[in-house]
């Protein structure tokens, strides 16, 4: 394991992080899916779950099929019924390490604000990502992304992944 200092590799890692948040900010679920490798996994949980070793958190897409189904949930199943909000992300890279097997382990902080249909803006959640990133066909993608919220109780129901 070695801390990554190569500026061009760090820029490529930042790019996949930004592709992810930018897709969510545009409610572009296909764009969100495209940042994952197949096979790939996504999990949304909280610090409280990590502390008490509890497996059921907020969302668990532990196979690529579930990542695809999450796009269906947002685009089709829920679209007419929910009150959509505009999420806005601030992310900050903590560290990136090259693993012995050539994959990248990254830890990134996030803060997500949201604006509801009434035009009022609030803090949605705060936390950090634990990612494993791999290079496939010259592109970096998440092989696993775990979003760990400090926020144990979000102030409204979440529609989109974080």
């Amino acid at each position, binding site marked *: 394991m070695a801390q990554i200092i190569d500026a061009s590799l760090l820029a490529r890692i930042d790019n996949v992080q930004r592709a992810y948040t930018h897709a969510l900010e545009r409610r572009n679920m296909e764009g969100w899916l495209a940042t994952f490798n197949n096979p790939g996994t996504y999990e949304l949980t909280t610090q409280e779950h990590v502390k008490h070793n*509890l497996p*059921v958190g*907020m969302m668990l897409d532990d196979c690529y*099929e579930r990542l695809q189904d999450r796009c269906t949930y947002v685009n089709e199943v829920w679209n007419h019924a929910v009150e959509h909000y505009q999420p806005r992300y601030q992310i900050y890279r903590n560290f990136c390490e090259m693993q012995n097997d050539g994959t990248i382990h990254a830890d990134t902080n996030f803060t997500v604000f949201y604006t509801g249909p009434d035009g009022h803006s609030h803090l949605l959640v705060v936390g950090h990502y634990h990612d494993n990133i791999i290079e496939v066909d010259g592109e970096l993608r998440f092989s696993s992304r775990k979003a760990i919220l400090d926020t144990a*109780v*979000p102030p409204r*129901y979440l529609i989109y992944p974080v």
Partner: protein
Amino acid sequence: MNSPISPLSPVDLQNWSDHTRVPFSVYTDPDIYRLELERIFYGPFWQPVALVCEIPEIGDYKTFFIGETPLIVTHTGENEFHTMVNACSHRGVELTNEFLGKANDFTCPYHGWVFDNKGECHVTPGEERFRADFKKSDFGLTQLRTTVWSQVVWATFDPATPSMEEFLGDAAPALRNALGGGERPLKLLGYQKIVFNCNWKIYMDNDGYHAGLLHTAFRLLDFQGGQGIQISGGTGGHWGIDYGTKPYEDNGYLNDASVVETRNNELTATVNLIRPLCQSVKHLNSINFRFARPLGPGKTEVHYTYLGFVDDDDDIAEHRIRQSANLLGPSGFVSIEDSAVFERVQKAITAPHNTVNFVKGLAESPDGKRCMQNDEAGSTPWWNDYKQRMGL
């Protein structure tokens, strides 16, 4: 009971006559909310404060709330639990802020008084200069009556609360079935905690009864739940529906249909509303007990608590985890519309001279005690009781 109505109360409240037509102001008025804390949350209702599996070992504790009162729930002996107010008996300081923890005693961070996990006071530094009649034994933590029923720890402030059997009445069997029959030891799998931006009664009015109506996912899957009967019972208008499900036949809509798969032929399915503020759902292989508390008149915090069984084999244990995380929570595949409806009702109920109307099912069931799964009549025993209890 004395009426809380004064000439300053909203006109709708002054004129409320029909308990099946609830004035909007009942959901929004701050004076009503204060009175609900007194007469309902601190009144003759057993309220769930923990599951045994959240604090499975002696010495474990959990913090939670009834109404706005912070509590510590402790596991103190073989099938013995205590519930006490999480406020130092000296000057009122919160004793612990851990959600789940382990401790044999609690030391107050202010002047160092020490309480054991049954709430007895043992150490009071500087006592030689306290008032002459000071006795530690007079300064235990405020205790709530506490009982265990179906692996749930219940507590109440009111000495007049009837036994659990009388309290739940005919609503007991469906709740017991939701929790695996009450004997098979449950296991804690995790939580989904959320704030709904709605009054606590909107949360209770608008869930459970409408499964086949509101939820688009069931339609897209061609998968409707069974037809159950809402059975109302006990004191305060609890209800339960024990409806059972058929296994899902995959119509190809999902790439991973395991989220709606029923394994081990576990077809028990029940929905339960326990007054004033608790729900429990067993659907497919997901077992869900929901603790909740009001955060003022306009917000409700809900802790969806997911459960399995200690004796689950690896396959079903993993399946419950995978299903629970995505199926029936505040952001669940089939249930997110609930969250949306709660908040959309709240936004609109500020209008004067308007009522929330319970109509469906009253033709066949005027008292609402037995009605169909999707009927609104099942909520009316609660509203009848509420209206009288509140003196409205």
